[in-house]
């Protein structure tokens, strides 16, 4: 156990805690900046099994903050889940690591061979977070929300029994209102700060320690770090905490269909929304090229792909053929699915 000697010396962990960590499984959803930080820390901490899921490929713009990837990965356009699993296996051969190149949908979660002991949010979108929220509530598993944009971040443990994400926000925020790393930028230390909280809480959960209550927020540029108090009980009317409903588990995922004979994919959100194209255009602003708002639609170019977005939420992505990739780009740039 030399490998973990510095960790087992900690009063909160000890040899028994290390044994528990070793006997645990963690699911890390999303293998971007947050996901790579979390996966790296958990693997080095000696977790028994780690499941990674991500549908996207490694790009040059990831290297600034996504710690598991190299220039070679970006050049090869490797799937993130594959590149990360390879790198992690080299860091700790004792961990059973599985990288899944997939969309994290209810159907995907149902294919997992067992329930993980903890779920770490490394996603970049709220629909998936609500899915994790509802799935974990149904299966009585804790998960840890985390998000970062600009120089700020936030994280929160959602313990078994709540309060859950729906207690705080009954509905996912509208994508057009939420800033993203693509449009607002992201400073790598903001990720590290949020990830530190998230992984520490994960380890606490695994060894049986009491997790922090409240929402951790930070602004690494301003140098402010705080834990905002949160009520201890679930909202009285929360359908998920009361076990009545798990809406995200029943919602169909966005559909993505390759257009016959075209280098293009059509993405449809699960239900029709009224997307404010003007607001989306303002938010995208200078982050995209050839932004064009016509009477009927919004066009722009990003990540080498031409987007045509409609008020119904449908988008056509020209220059891409893989539906998974198209859905990832949709979530990244349009922000709801």
């Amino acid at each position, binding site marked *: 156990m030399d490998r973990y000697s510095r960790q087992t010396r900690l009063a909160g962990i000890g040899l028994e805690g290390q044994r528990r960590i070793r006997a645990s499984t963690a699911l890390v959803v999303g293998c971007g900046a947050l996901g790579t930080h979390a996966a790296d820390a958990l693997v080095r901490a000696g977790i028994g099994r780690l499941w990674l899921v991500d549908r996207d490929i490694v790009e040059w713009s990831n290297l600034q903050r996504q710690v598991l990837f190299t220039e070679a990965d970006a050049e090869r356009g490797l799937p993130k889940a594959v590149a990360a699993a390879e790198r992690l296996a080299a860091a700790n051969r004792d961990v059973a690591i599985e990288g899944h190149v997939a969309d994290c949908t209810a159907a995907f979660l149902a294919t997992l061979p067992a329930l993980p002991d903890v779920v770490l949010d490394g996603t970049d979108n709220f629909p998936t977070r609500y899915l994790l929220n509802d799935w974990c509530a149904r299966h009585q598993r804790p998960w840890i929300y985390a998000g970062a944009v600009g120089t700020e971040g936030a994280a929160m443990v959602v313990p078994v029994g709540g309060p859950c994400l729906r207690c705080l926000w009954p509905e996912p925020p509208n994508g057009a209102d939420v800033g993203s790393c693509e449009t607002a930028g992201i400073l790598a230390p903001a990720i590290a700060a949020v990830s530190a909280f998230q992984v520490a809480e994960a380890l606490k959960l695994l060894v049986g320690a009491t997790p922090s209550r409240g929402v951790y927020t930070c602004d690494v540029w301003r140098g402010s770090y705080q834990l905002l108090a949160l009520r201890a009980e679930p909202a009285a009317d929360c359908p998920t905490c009361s076990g009545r409903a798990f809406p995200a588990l029943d919602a169909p995922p966005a559909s993505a269909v390759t*257009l*016959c*004979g*075209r280098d*293009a994919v*059509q993405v449809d959100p699960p239900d029709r929304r009224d997307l404010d194209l003007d607001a989306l255009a303002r938010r995208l602003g200078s982050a995209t090229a050839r932004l064009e708002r*016509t009477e*009927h*639609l919004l066009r722009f170019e990003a990540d080498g792909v031409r987007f*045509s977005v*409609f*008020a*119904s939420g*449908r988008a*056509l992505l*020209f220059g891409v053929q893989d539906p998974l990739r198209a859905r990832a780009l949709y979530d990244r740039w349009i922000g709801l699915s």
Partner: protein
Amino acid sequence: MIHLDHAATSFPKPPAVLAAVRRWFESVGVSADRGDGANCVLAARTVAATRERLGALCGVPPARIAFVSGATEGLNLVLRALLAPGDRVLTTAFEHSSVVRPLVALQRERGLQLEVLPPDAARDLPAAPFAAALQRWRPRVCVFAHASNVTGTALDAAVICAAARDVGCTTVLDASQTAGLLDLRVGADVVVASGHKALHGPPGIGFVAAQPRVPLPPQKQGGTGSSRALDEHPTEWPQAFEAGTPNTPAIFGLGAALEWLAEQTPARLLARGLGHVDALAAGLAGKPGVRLLLPPPERRVPVLSFVHDTLDPSELGALFAAASVQVRSGFHCAPWLHAHLGTAAAGTVRLSPGPELTPADLATALAAF
């Protein structure tokens, strides 16, 4: 949802079609010629009546009507049964993938010689150049779409079939876009169509109508409900082409659809559909950037393709969808045609109205962009 996609499949179906399908599931439940019970007799009676109606529609004896899963299966079986190694085959650039792909596969397998007639600049393929090609090329088989599923161009099938007969060429007519709209008694040796388009039957059923003079040996082998003790598939029609359990509920539905069609009359349905096309064309023509891909007015079916200067067909498809109008955008499974239409990059938007539409429906569609 306003359905402007009748060239793909008709919707809604006449209530009698639903009732007939339901009747089979509720109170018949068995296949014709597969047992001794009263329900088998009932099934056999409806199947025979449907065969009779189709025979009358195509001008062949009922025994020369084979039920297949659709035009795709029918065309595959017919072309495989007809074509021998090295055969010369004349066809057109209008063809759907259900003709193009079997021909290309057979070309590879059997070394066919293919001649493909292109449309002219008016998106027409008149009978005269077709007949001239038959004379010049002397094909053994000529297979062609009665009407294009992209432009709505209808070919003068009677003249073409007569010209083919003069040179001893066997004709196969793909009537998928015309069955239920145009007269199919055009002198073709074989007529193939699906039941779920303008015939208004359910999906999963189509037919091959073959003149008795055309030998069409089985291409698939299996149970037929006849000659049960033999280990060889019968060559008699229609059993030759009907291996396996038939789709009896769909045959019931198609039978009811044909009855409905006889009351409506194809001519009336065609006139109504073309009236809708004219209204749509007039509305679209007033929009800047629209280029209509209409065929000559004399011979056509209710299909209207168009393109736009600045909006991609897929973008237009999305705008129609947002207005709750079902249309099709893209290549419409007609891989040879788009090079001739100048639409090889992105295809077209296709509107194909059915008889049920109202002026308000058309106005909604026209307001989509």
